[in-house]
């Protein structure tokens, strides 16, 4: 078959089948063979033993988006895997690999017209002492997409602590099975460059450390937990610490307390946790204590679907706080950008003495991808600290709105950080003039922020613009690359404070705006309509999670519009 | 608590006066905050009087600086004998009440010094205590005279037409 620049495969099975481990090894093998790629995961609600699928894409170009279709779906068994049918779209050219001993593939998959290739995974594994069917499947998949066996072997060596020999032998059996099947092949890998294999959650954690965070308070929540788990040992290495809190109310308040003490601080959570943290974020605004919350969004409202992605926390992140509470909201627009966006959010929080929310999502957070090594420029966004001074006023009305912050331990500048409205000196005040002056000050420092070019990624030129943010950006980029002309992408990274003048300039000459977002009510569209002037006709392409947009859907939307325009 | 020396005794006496000074000043502040200017003024005056007493002790002893409380120092009661407890106040209190408080404090002080004068302390200490007790007795008399000049509070002085919302 003609080599292609991208191949997508999925490996599914019940708990205990080892599909995630095999998937990770396949991604690593592709990375070692010089390809880009990513793996996302989906799973049932069970803690252990539920159905799960590893969804991989291997490509000659950097990507963190899923493709339109999977070329291969392999399953160790078919129990309840049919539940993932919507997430695992197949096409007539696709291949279904299954173990005949586990029965026929479910009709929800075969009706796509995909070819079924039975491979006796369990029986093959049974030929080798200590071997598992998932390793046979790994070999089959590697063979079907044309990866070298050496890369599989190298990946297995990196990943397997026990049963390595049997594992490699099993993979070899699967690999040789694939050689007799008509599979797919990838174009040659691109020339080598510095690359990382990283998840969005790890990237955000690493960005936090690069931004200067040294205190993290943590309360476990899917899908943010891995971010906190990555940070726990990492913080210890860089001289910081992580405290597990009793709830999210505690974690945000611990972070505020540590930050008040002068240590840049962060917590990570998901929607339900963010809802609990909102009151304390208002305290951060009023008392001007920097703090960063990474919200790894999942479907809501309420508990929603904890393991799946959605961009539906935009409203609460922007407008959730009571009172007028100017603050920062930043959204990474690629998996790799989780590093820079989080580091930037820390810098903005510190330099403006304000809470910052980073809107990541489950898609980024739990996806692992091969990315070009991010280059982080050193940022000079630091907290303005007070030296001991006569007549120190913590909340002095400066022109920039930023007033020097005294750090406990500094002589002569003791003050009380207060969520009560206060005067310049920090003394509680219920007077109208103090309230107005402090509101102006807090608004001023945030609105005067000059984000430079970091406020958005602007790509392409055309009369049609796509406005989006976060993990929708990947599919839009790919749609544009396929379309090849006439479309301009503006993917916002700085959501608050809004940058109406910058967007106006970016949209000069644009006649149509397509707004792409992953939520039900069009939160991003409403935000754009309230904060910005959008030129020409505006359309919304949106749906709630968990299904990610596929590049072809976006491309068709653009094509249809241009044809009817 | 035994009082071993004149220095020790005088430092206690000084501390008593100082704490009384500070407490009356706090009372003045509290009533200022609650818009009871008249009584605040009275407490401020009482505070000034106690401050003078404290200053006199420093001068008598020729102490250049303020002595600190001895380590592990404790009065037999909760606070120094001349210090009025915080719960003495009411936001609607009248000058007469303030003088009642002052009177109680002076009587406590008399008792404290009398006890030392009659106790087993060294002669110099007992003599000084006797002198202090007599001085406090003079204060008692002065306050009693003062009380005659201010009106006695009528029944229901503590009624607030906007009462706290307590009972259901």
């Amino acid at each position, binding site marked *: 078959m003609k080599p292609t620049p991208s191949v997508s495969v999925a490996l599914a099975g019940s708990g205990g089948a080892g599909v995630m481990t095999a998937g990770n090894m396949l991604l690593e093998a592709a*990375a070692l063979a010089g390809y880009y790629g990513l793996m996302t995961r989906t799973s049932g609600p069970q803690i252990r033993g539920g159905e799960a699928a590893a969804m991989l894409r291997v490509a000659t170009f950097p990507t963190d988006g899923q493709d339109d279709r999977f070329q291969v779906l392999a399953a160790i068994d078919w129990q309840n895997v049919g539940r993932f049918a919507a997430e695992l779209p197949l096409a007539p050219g696709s291949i279904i690999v299954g173990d005949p001993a586990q029965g026929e593939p479910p009709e929800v998959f075969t009706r796509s017209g995909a070819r079924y290739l039975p491979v006796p995974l369990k029986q093959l594994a049974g030929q080798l002492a200590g071997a598992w069917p998932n390793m046979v499947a790994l070999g089959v998949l590697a063979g079907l997409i044309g990866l070298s066996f050496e890369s599989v072997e190298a990946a297995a060596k990196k990943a397997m602590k026990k049963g390595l020999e049997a594992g490699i032998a099993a993979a070899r059996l699967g690999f040789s099975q694939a050689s007799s099947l008509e599979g797919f092949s990838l174009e040659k890998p691109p020339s080598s460059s510095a690359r*990382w294999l990283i998840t969005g959650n*790890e990237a955000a954690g690493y960005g936090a*450390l*690069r931004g200067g965070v*040294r*205190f993290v*308070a943590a309360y476990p929540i899917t899908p943010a937990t891995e971010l906190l788990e990555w940070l726990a040992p990492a*913080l*210890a290495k860089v001289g*910081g*610490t992580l*405290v597990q809190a*009793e*709830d999210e*109310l*505690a*974690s945000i308040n*611990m972070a*505020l*307390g*540590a930050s*008040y*003490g002068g240590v840049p601080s962060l917590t990570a959570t998901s929607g339900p946790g963010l809802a609990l943290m909102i009151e*304390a974020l208002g305290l951060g605004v009023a*008392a001007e204590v920097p703090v960063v919350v990474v919200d790894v969004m999942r479907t809501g409202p309420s508990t929603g679907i904890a393991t799946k992605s959605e961009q539906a926390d935009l409203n609460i992140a922007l407008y959730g706080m009571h009172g007028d509470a100017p603050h920062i909201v930043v959204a990474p627009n690629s998996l790799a950008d989780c590093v820079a966006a989080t580091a930037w959010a820390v810098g903005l929080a510190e330099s403006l003495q304000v809470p910052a929310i980073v809107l990541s999502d489950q898609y980024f957070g739990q996806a692992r991808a*091969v990315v070009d090594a991010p280059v982080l420029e050193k940022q000079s966004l630091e907290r303005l600290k007070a030296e001991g001074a006569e007549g120190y006023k913590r909340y002095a009305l400066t022109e920039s709105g930023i007033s020097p912050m005294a750090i*406990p*331990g500094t002589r002569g*500048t*003791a*003050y009380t*950080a*207060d*969520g009560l409205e206060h005067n310049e000196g920090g003394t*509680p005040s219920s007077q109208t003039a103090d309230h107005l002056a402090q509101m102006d000050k807090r608004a001023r420092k945030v609105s005067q922020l000059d984000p430079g070019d970091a406020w958005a990624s602007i790509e392409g030129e055309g009369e049609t613009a796509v406005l989006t943010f976060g993990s929708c950006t990947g599919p839009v980029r790919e749609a544009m690359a396929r379309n090849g002309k006439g479309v301009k992408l503006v993917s916002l990274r700085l959501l608050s404070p809004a940058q109406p003048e910058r967007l106006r300039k970016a949209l000069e000459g644009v006649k149509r705006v397509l707004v792409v977002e992953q939520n039900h009510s069009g939160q991003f569209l409403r935000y754009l309509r309230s904060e910005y002037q959008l030129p020409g006709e505006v359309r919304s392409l949106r749906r709630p999670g968990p299904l990610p947009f596929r590049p072809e859907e976006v491309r068709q939307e653009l094509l249809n519009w241009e044809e009817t325009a | 608590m035994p009082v071993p*020396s004149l*220095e020790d005794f005088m*430092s206690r006496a000084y501390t008593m006066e100082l704490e009384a000074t*500070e407490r009356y000043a706090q009372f003045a*502040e*509290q009533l200022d905050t*609650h818009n*009871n200017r008249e009584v605040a003024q009275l407490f401020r005056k009482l505070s000034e009087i106690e401050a003078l007493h404290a200053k006199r002790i420093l001068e008598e002893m020729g*102490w250049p600086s*303020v*002595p600190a409380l001895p380590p592990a120092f*404790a009065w037999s009661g*909760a*606070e120094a004998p001349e210090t009025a*407890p*915080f*719960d003495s*106040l*009411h*936001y609607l209190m009248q000058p007469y009440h303030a003088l009642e408080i002052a009177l109680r404090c002076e009587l406590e002080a008399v008792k404290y010094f009398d006890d030392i004068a009659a106790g087993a302390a060294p002669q110099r200490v007992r003599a000084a205590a006797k002198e202090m007790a007599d001085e406090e007795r003079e204060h008692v008399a002065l306050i009693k005279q003062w009380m005659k000049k201010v009106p006695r509070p009528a029944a229901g002085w503590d009624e607030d037409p906007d009462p706290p*919302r*307590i*009972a*259901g």
Partner: protein
Amino acid sequence: MNAPFAAAALQPKDFKSGYKPVWCPGCGDYSVLTGVTKALAMLELRPENVAVVSGIGCSSRIPAYTNCYGFHGVHGRALPAATGLKVARPELTVLVASGDGDGYSIGGNHFLHACRRNVDLTYIVMDNHVYGMTKGQPSPTTEPDWRSKLAPGGTGLREFHPLVIALASGANFIARGFSGDPNGLAALIAEAVRHPGFYFLEVLSPCVTFRPEQRGWKEAVHPAPVAPTDDPGRAARRLMTDDGFNIGVLYKGSRAPFTGMAAAPTDSPEDLECLFRL
């Protein structure tokens, strides 16, 4: 002649700010403030090395009345804020002020976990069995038959027993003080600051406005009749059966405190890139 005792570096009044309390005249919290400032003077601390952290309520107004560093946060969350501060800045002395509503009701969960976490904090709860700032509603420690606008027939609920709960949650040091004895409070607070680990000091602090009958507490309180125990079983029995007016240290354990920030860094953040590099 020289002064008989070396003058302390700072006097109690040096720990007060010029900001005047809004507490009612007669309130027990004035006395706690005095106890705090006396203890800090006694400990020869400097105000800039002390932080006073609180939530919301009458009691929680304390930070701004001191000239230490203060953190007046949101309702119920003083303990987490103080925990973050102390872990991040272990060299600071951190006092936490709270009340029965702030500390036992909205902040109840943090109380349990602060007791078991054993971070080196001095936790002072001013208990007056009523919400004062919101003008007289029953709190977790209010008697079941106390009538109020919000609970006209009384709550009918048994009172929360903070000392027993602290013990059951693993508190290492439990004491009860009384606002009528500011010097006694000062001594307890000073002991609390010296004690490594979490020190829970419940202070009976009358509300003269909404619970004027609490002025009678001064007749009810008495020193604890026995020395503090280090046996949690015995402490549990004592705390369960005491009359609520025993004053002094009631339980004294020896659990090691929670440790603060990691030692010196072994890596720079950039060094951690090796975890991702292919």
